[in-house]
């Protein structure tokens, strides 16, 4: 017997009908809420929150070759990560990498978008051609860059081209002085991702109302730099902000090209690569690796809060 039937006898019928209906609707929408979000939340808890919690737990233990340690060592892992220089060095590496790759990709993808936007013929063709590298995997591209384009032998593509001008063979990746490896790392990422951001800019460019350009022309703005500086660029502000944030996130997640291009080095290791070597790679020190991950998580939280304050991203429409 269901509860509704008992209630029917105790309460006046006319008032009860709509109320019971609403209650049922509320209850079933609650159920719907859990049905729809439940699997996702369960996944989030199982695959994100429990690992984060476990990682925090591991960071206080000596966890080598095990993820179920029993030797509590307090803040030793944190001390090691912060004083050994490898981890702090990796933060510097990331900063250098982001400082190069973010503005360069931004400028190149915007430049490509502007050029493709002005095309009268073959627009779709060039759009596709520039976008295609996005479909290539970072690992495959890294190997092509390493073994054929920036190979250190005399028949490597770059060395062949430079050889025509009498330049000696360069070991692009082996020798960190001068740091040519940055050229290899930056160009491979540039080739892979510029096309994607070009599409974002292209969409934004097509959304700028033509009347703005007409009005500017009537007001005497010269076509070219002046129009670009005062009409196009301000109109692209929202897209630019989004692109810069996406680029920062992508730069932070960079792993494949560093891992595949630089082996057995002590330089050119952003935080994720460094932590991979510490925890999952050959060292298998899950305690120290987790301590690094916790420090990194705290840093990301701080940066996210700060960018929310300065860029106003995530605050809602009234912020801009």
């Amino acid at each position, binding site marked *: 017997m269901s509860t509704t039937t008992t209630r029917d006898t105790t309460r006046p019928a006319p008032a009860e009908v709509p109320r019971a209906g609403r209650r049922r609707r509320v209850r*079933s929408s609650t*159920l719907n809420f859990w049905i729809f979000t439940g699997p996702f939340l369960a996944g989030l808890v199982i695959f994100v929150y429990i690992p984060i919690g476990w990682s925090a737990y591991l960071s206080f233990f000596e966890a080598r070759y095990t993820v179920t340690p029993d030797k509590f060592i307090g803040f030793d892992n944190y001390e090691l990560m912060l004083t050994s220089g490898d981890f702090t060095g990796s933060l510097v590496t990331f900063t250098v990498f982001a400082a190069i790759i973010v503005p360069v990709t931004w400028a190149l993808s915007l430049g490509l978008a502007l050029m493709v936007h002005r095309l009268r013929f073959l627009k779709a063709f060039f759009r596709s051609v520039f976008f295609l590298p996005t479909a290539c995997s970072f690992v495959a591209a890294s190997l092509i860059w390493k073994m054929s384009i920036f*190979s250190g032998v*005399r028949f490597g593509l770059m060395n062949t081209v430079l050889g025509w001008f009498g330049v000696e063979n360069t*070991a692009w990746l*082996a020798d960190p002085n001068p740091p040519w490896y940055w050229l290899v790392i930056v160009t491979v990422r540039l080739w892979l991702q510029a096309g994607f951001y070009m599409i974002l800019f292209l969409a934004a460019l097509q959304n700028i109302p033509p009347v703005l350009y007409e009005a500017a022309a009537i007001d005497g703005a010269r076509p070219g730099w002046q129009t670009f500086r005062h009409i196009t660029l301000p109109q692209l502000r929202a897209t630019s902000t989004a692109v810069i944030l996406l680029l920062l996130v992508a730069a932070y997640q960079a792993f494949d090209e560093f891992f595949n291009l630089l082996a057995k080095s002590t330089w050119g290791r952003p935080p994720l690569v460094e932590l991979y070597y510490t925890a999952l790679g050959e060292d298998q020190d899950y305690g120290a690796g987790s301590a690094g991950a916790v420090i990194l998580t705290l840093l990301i939280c701080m940066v996210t809060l700060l960018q929310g304050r300065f860029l106003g991203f995530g605050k809602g429409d009234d912020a801009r």
Partner: protein
Amino acid sequence: MSAPSSSTWDRRSVLRAAAGLAALGPLASCGGNTGREGGGSSGKGLVQYFHAYGEAGTQEAIKRYAKAYDKARVTTQWITGNNFESKLFSSLLTDNAPDVFEFHPQLQLIKSGQVAPLDDILGPVKDDFNPADITSHTVDGKVYGVRMIDDPQFFFYRKSILEKAGVGVPQTLDELAEAAGRLTTDKVKGLFIGNNMVSTNYALVWAAGADQLDDKNEIAYHTDDVAAALKVYRKMFTSGHLLLDAPADYWDPSALVQGLTAIQWCGMWAMPVMQKALGDDLGIFPFPAAASGAEPAVYNGGWSMFVNAKGKNVDLAKEYVKWLWIDQKKYQEDWALSYGFHIPPRQSIAASATELKSGLPAEGVKLFTDYGRFDNISWTQAMITALDEVIANAVRKGTDPEKALDTADAKVNRELKKLFG
């Protein structure tokens, strides 16, 4: 019809709930492909891990041996890429860990109870093994791991190129550096010691009269002679006489075969391919002495079979290792001699190996016995990485060798403290 329609458990919501559960289904099946083919009717399954050998036919050979075993279905994971250690170590922590795997003797695997002692299966044939191969796998009187192959590593050179340049076989590290310079032309580099230059680490330390660790398991590699040898390396690195960033690394014979270099550090395994390509235009010599009074050095690497002590079928895994790597001498001989050249650790097999009895292979065996030194089981992966970083810092980056060695000391001491207290 009356009561159910007013309950929350009506037909629709039950269906919805069922659909929700069904949506969770795929999550549960994540990671279902373990490479294990389940129990089945034909008995239990075992999983074995091998790194990808470069020689043609090796993968087929390992799978052929496994198939011939009739007490269990053995699945082979052939791990490609240059980070076999990482993949092995991280998989050992999971439920999909291999039951048997090939690796090198390393103390931390034993201290953490990861590998099982194999005295019971090795006992009867212990005397047939090269004594050094037993010593390098022994901790506190127990033997862990069955050696499959011994792989001496030394220098290979093109006789014709050295003759043409009037360069003799280098007897000291300084002579090697000088030879590299004189052999370098605009087409050919003088010397190839690997793209990362870490594969000669042990030989460099030994040839400088030092060792990784001493008898008391304390640091022994940090000497003035090692620092001086590192300076010679740095000089070679900056002079442009070394082949760097080659498409294939030191373990592959192609740099020498394709004429990219005159001298290459490589292993005995590549000898058949080199001989086939170069004929008689091929010679070998050990890592030359790098300090006065020191001996030349050859690194006797190799691979051994280990049993995962935390696996589900430890006894069956032991049975399999005994069957293949102790009982089946035909397969052991095939594995050591039919693809690349390796020195069989079983003396009875080595004695009948006609391929290694004459010519260049015999010279390789002589270097193996005269100058070869084996792995030190107390020298573990974290220490290997620390010494690799010395090369990265002191040779490639240009840090002062003393400082680079100090950095390594801190890491090695941390590891030693954890292993020995």
